[in-house]
């Protein structure tokens, strides 16, 4: 298929693979973190690990919006649906994230809560228009890619005077999470980053410059197709070999240094920074998430229904935190593939196919048996 097959070509992959093997210094290790779940998924689905030499290792980062959602945030949504009788709308994978009391949004739905899976914020608005007698809350999750559509929905609701619509805002920011990973005392065992694809189309490549300048880590922004990822890996290997740390852009067909200014303006108009937000895996990170500006307070479900956030610790056996920081691999978690599977996820990394554990379980676990 046009514009797809070109980026999945086996011959080209073989060429890049040969170049990586030839250029990678056998005397050293290359520990590269792909921040985004989209990259994690591509690496697993196309078997990219098989095309890399053993000293080039990919570490799966925290860039899966469902995975970084802490239990307390899902609890909040469930409370809204069960105690305030709202129609709770959200993107599909979110409904499977495990929450307190052995619940998830999907299980809450089975117990009678009105939870609806939607593809777009426009669907949530439509539900609100069609149900004027009910309160409709959109559980807004995701990085910078999903934030602009939420901003559009809020502005539309304001313009229409749609009083029964509000959002539970869990939008988070990529650069803040990367800072949190890198700001560990004593440094981290990461030699470079494959930078986000879709997020970068919105924010541009500029926000990654501090990671190269201040932390000395190479960043290569890459598209989500397998050849994009392989080319980015080659570019990172070259930077590491040269002792360089720069932000390079492999995804030039979609990403500029400045990004999508219109989307950025829209987001800035509707949202402002939260002082602090708790991430699963990364803990409380200052200035790492968004909330609605006071001007749009009427659409803030947290204020409207007075549902406070209550932090809930993760399951003790769950290694999601270390996995999301790249300190452990999924297979190093004791409950991986036994107690915790995609059918019955304990940790959030097992929920979405972009999660490190689910991707490894679904696509790569034969490697441990070899």
């Amino acid at each position: 298929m046009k514009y797809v097959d070109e980026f999945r070509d086996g011959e080209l992959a073989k060429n890049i693979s040969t170049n990586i093997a030839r250029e990678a210094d056998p005397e050293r290790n290359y520990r590269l973190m792909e921040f985004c779940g989209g990259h994690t998924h591509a690496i697993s689905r196309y078997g990219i690990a098989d095309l890399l030499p053993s000293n080039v290792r990919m570490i799966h980062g925290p860039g899966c919006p469902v995975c970084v959602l802490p239990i307390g945030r899902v609890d909040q949504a469930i409370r809204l649906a069960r105690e305030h009788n709202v129609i709770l709308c959200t993107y599909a994978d979110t409904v499977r994230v495990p929450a307190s009391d052995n619940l998830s949004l999907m299980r809450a739905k089975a117990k009678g809560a009105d939870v609806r899976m939607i593809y777009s914020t426009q669907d949530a608005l439509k539900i609100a228009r069609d149900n004027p007698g009910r309160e409709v809350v959109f559980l807004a999750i995701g990085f910078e890619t999903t934030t602009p559509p939420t901003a559009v929905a809020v502005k539309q609701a304001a313009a229409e005077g749609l009083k029964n619509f509000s959002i539970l805002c869990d939008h988070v920011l990529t650069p803040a999470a990367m800072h949190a990973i890198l700001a560990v005392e004593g440094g981290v065992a990461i030699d470079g980053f494959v930078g986000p694809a879709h997020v970068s189309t919105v924010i541009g490549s500029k926000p990654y410059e501090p990671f190269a300048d201040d932390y000395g880590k190479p960043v290569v922004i890459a598209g989500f197709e397998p050849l994009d990822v392989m080319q980015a890996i080659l570019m990172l290997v070259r930077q590491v070999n040269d002792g360089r740390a720069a932000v390079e852009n492999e995804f030039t067909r979609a990403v500029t240094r400045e990004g999508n200014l219109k989307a950025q303006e829209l987001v800035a108009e509707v949202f402002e920074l939260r002082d602090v937000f708790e991430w699963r895996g990364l803990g409380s990170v200052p200035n790492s998430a968004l909330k609605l500006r006071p001007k749009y307070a009427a659409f803030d479900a947290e204020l409207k229904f007075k549902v406070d956030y209550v932090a809930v610790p993760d399951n003790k056996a769950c290694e999601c935190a270390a996995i999301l920081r790249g300190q452990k691999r999924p297979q190093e978690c004791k409950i991986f593939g036994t107690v915790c599977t995609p059918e019955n996820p304990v940790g959030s990394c097992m929920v979405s196919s972009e999660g490190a554990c689910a991707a490894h379980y679904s696509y790569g676990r034969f490697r441990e048996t070899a």
Partner: protein
Amino acid sequence: MSTVKPNYTRALDIKNGRVDMSHGSGGRAMAQLITELFAVAFDNEYLAQGNDGALLPSASGRLVMATDSHVVSPLFFAGGDIGCLSVHGTINDVAVMGATPLYLSAGFILEEGFPLADLKRIVESMAKASREAGVPVVTGDTKVVEQGKGDGVFITTTGVGVLREGVHLSGDLARPGDKILLSGTIGDHGMAILSQREGLTFSAPIVSDTAALHGLIAAMLDSGAKLRVLRDPTRGGLATTLNEIAKQSGVGMMLQESAIKVNQPVEAACEFLGLDPLYVANEGKLIAICAPEDAPRLLEVMRAHPLGAAASVIGEVLEDAHGFVQMTTKLGGRRVVDWLAGEQLPRIC
């Protein structure tokens, strides 16, 4: 003296009428629905007996029986509707056992308020599918539920067939070294349903592959190839069906992604919606596992049949205690093709 003709009833108002509770109550209205709609459409000597059950001639050989309920939404989709789907689905379940399908039964659960015109369309589509397949609907049942308690119409069909002499097919018979054959493209049915449901339009429409496979299967059995397993990869798609076989047989599999065909509009729709065609339902495809030496002959026979024209060998059965179904990707890497977790698409058949 009345001028009304004896036994006169006003004909069903198919054009504007709707199903009401009386159509399931066992009274005159139900009898009329059966006589004027179902009996006319399905017309055959067994149904015409008009009794509680059909009296059938004795069959020589072992019997195969299969049942399938259909709740697809929307009821009408590109390439078919719930009616022909309910005939094809059950015929295929009987046929992949290696049996010749002989008879079908049909149970209808109708929702109060359902337009009779739509019901007629569905029943006629069913009757056409059954006539074309040569497998009559010999008995049936109709129930009506209150508005809001159904979704238009649900149809359950049961099929009976007689096993062909000397044929033994089962999911636990795949052996290391066996070849895995697939009769055509994957994902057509599931994406036809979904693209219609989501209002997605593509330059070329996605058409369901719903079809009765017993003719193709008969040709395959006639070829004399040593067939071990036949399955139709419906819900959960190719990936799920292969995992079922691997588990039953206690084997692994290695597939070649490049050999698995996907129609371009289906591929585009899957890309668009983030779905993997390996997990999308088919309603007119089959997987065959056979002894390696017979694969070329079997492939030739399949390709000679219209429903197997795009058949290919997609992989091989391996010895693997873990029962992993793996795939060599087009990119040249390897991955697991796992069971479907959760639900990719609801209510597709």
